[in-house]
C-alpha cells in the first residue's frame, strides 16, 4: 500500500512537472542574424504579453499562447543581447538571446590621417576602418580589408588586413612624388576614399647665381627642390646675407614660382650667402665682376 502511494505521488509530481514545462515554454532561437525573419514558439493557453528588451532595442507584443510569434526582418535588427519576458495567461517565463550583425559589409567608417604630410615619410599615413552592416551594427566577424594608396604616375601601395572585432588598420608610407594621393579602403563590395595631400619635403640643395646690375648685384636661386626632386612650395623663405667690412645685412625672400630673387649693394669684396631652413647654399664673393 505504501509502495503504491509512493508510486502515485511520483507519477503525480512528474505529471505536474511536465505540465508546467509545457505551459511555460518560450522557445527562442539563441542567436538571430540582424535583418532576418525569425519566430518564437510559445506553449500554453490564453493571452499573454511578450516583452523583448535590451539596450539596443525593445519590443512588446500581445500574443496568444500556443501560437508561433513571427518577426520580420525589420523588427529586431540592432545587434545585441536581449531579454525576453512572457507575462500573462498560463505562462510567466523569461529567456535571453542574441541578435548578431549581418556578415555583409554595408558601410565603412574610414579615418585617414593626416590629411597633409611631406613626401617620403615612413609610416606617416594611418588608416583605420570600422566595418558596419546595413543596420549600423559593427561586424565583428573577421573581414578582409584592402587599403590602396596611389599617386599618379607611381605604383600604388597595397595592404590587405583582416579585421579584428570590427576594426582594421594600417600604416603606410607617403610617396616620393608630391601631389594628391587617393587612399582607398575596401571591404566586400564597399569602398571608401580619402584624399591625402603629399607635399614636398624640406629643401635639399640650394644654389644661387649673381649678375652685376650697376651699383647692385642681382641674385637668383636655381629652382628649389626637396631631396626627391619635388619643387618646394612657393612662400618658403630664402635668406640672402651680405657681409662687408664687418657689417651684415640680410634679406628674406619668399619663393615665387620655385625661385627666390633679390638685389643687394654690389660692394667689392663682399661675401654673399644663401640659406633656407636648415640648408645652407653656396657663397659668392664679389670681386668687381663676381
Amino acid at each position: 500500500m505504501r509502495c503504491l502511494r509512493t508510486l502515485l505521488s511520483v507519477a503525480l509530481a512528474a505529471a505536474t512537472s511536465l505540465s508546467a514545462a509545457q505551459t511555460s515554454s518560450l522557445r527562442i532561437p539563441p542567436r538571430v542574424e540582424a535583418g532576418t525573419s525569425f519566430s518564437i514558439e510559445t506553449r500554453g493557453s490564453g493571452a499573454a504579453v511578450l516583452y523583448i528588451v535590451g539596450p539596443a532595442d525593445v519590443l512588446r507584443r500581445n500574443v496568444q499562447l500556443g501560437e508561433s510569434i513571427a518577426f520580420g526582418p525589420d523588427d529586431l535588427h540592432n545587434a545585441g543581447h536581449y531579454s525576453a519576458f512572457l507575462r500573462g495567461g498560463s505562462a510567466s517565463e523569461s529567456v535571453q538571446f542574441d541578435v548578431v550583425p549581418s556578415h555583409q559589409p554595408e558601410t565603412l567608417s574610414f579615418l585617414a590621417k593626416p590629411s597633409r604630410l611631406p613626401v617620403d615619410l615612413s609610416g606617416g599615413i594611418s588608416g583605420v576602418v570600422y566595418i558596419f552592416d546595413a543596420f549600423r551594427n559593427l561586424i565583428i566577424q573577421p573581414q578582409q580589408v584592402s587599403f590602396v594608396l596611389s599617386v599618379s604616375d607611381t605604383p600604388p601601395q597595397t595592404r590587405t588586413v583582416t579585421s579584428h572585432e570590427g576594426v582594421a588598420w594600417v600604416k603606410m608610407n607617403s610617396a616620393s612624388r608630391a601631389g594628391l594621393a587617393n587612399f582607398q579602403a575596401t571591404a566586400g563590395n564597399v569602398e571608401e576614399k580619402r584624399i591625402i595631400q603629399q607635399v614636398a619635403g624640406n629643401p635639399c640643395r640650394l644654389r644661387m647665381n649673381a649678375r652685376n646690375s650697376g651699383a647692385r648685384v642681382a641674385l637668383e636661386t636655381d629652382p628649389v627642390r626637396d631631396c626627391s626632386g619635388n619643387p618646394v612650395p612657393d612662400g618658403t623663405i630664402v635668406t640672402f646675407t651680405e657681409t662687408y667690412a664687418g657689417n651684415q645685412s640680410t634679406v628674406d625672400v619668399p619663393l615665387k614660382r620655385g625661385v627666390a630673387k633679390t638685389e643687394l649693394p654690389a660692394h667689392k669684396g663682399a661675401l654673399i650667402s644663401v640659406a633656407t631652413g636648415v640648408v645652407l647654399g653656396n657663397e659668392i664673393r664679389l670681386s668687381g665682376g663676381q
Partner: protein
Amino acid sequence: MMKAMRTLKPLFLAPLLLTTLLVPGADKPSVRVGSMDSVGPRAVEKQTQLSIVRDYLLAWQSLARALAQNRPASLDDSFTGIARDKLADTIREQSKLGFQTHYRDTTHNLQVIFYSPEGLSIQLLDDVEYDIELYEKGKLLGTQHVRSRYLSVLTPTESKWKVRIFEAQPLEQRLAKGDQRLHERKHQSYPWGFAA
C-alpha cells in the same frame, strides 16, 4: 569624480596583468581592468587609461538613468554617434510602449584591445554582469541576471571620452574568439593590423 579617480589610480600602477577593483558601496559594480601596457598600435598613456575606465563606467550610469527614466537626454554626457542614436531610439520606443527597464551593473571585466594610431578611437571589451528589471505602469514584471560581453568604441571629445559604438556579443562566439585571439597573440602583436 575625484574620489572615483583616486580609487582607480592604484589599479594602473600595479604591474599585474589583471587588477581587481572593488569599489566600496553596495550599488557600485566591481571592476576589473586588464593591463593596457601592450595595447596597440598606439600606447595608452596613464592619464588616458584612467579617463577611459572612468568615462566608460560613467556611460553605464548614464545608460541606466536614461532607460529607467525614459530620458534620452541623459545619454548626451556619455554617448555619441551610432551608440547614442540607437540607445535614444530604444528609449523612445520604451516610452511609446509604456514601460521602463532598470539596469544595475554589478561586474565589469574590462580589456582595452585597440587604440588607433592617431589616438582618435579606443576599443574595449567588457565582460559585464548586470540585472535588468522590467516595469510597466510602475509594476515590476520581471527580473533577469545577465552575463554578456560588450564591445565598445570610445572617441575623445572636448572634455571626455564618449561611447560611439556599444554592442553586445553572443556568449558562445566570444569564447571561441577568445581562444583564437590568445593563439594569434603568441605570433604577432597586432594580428588585426598591418604596419608599413
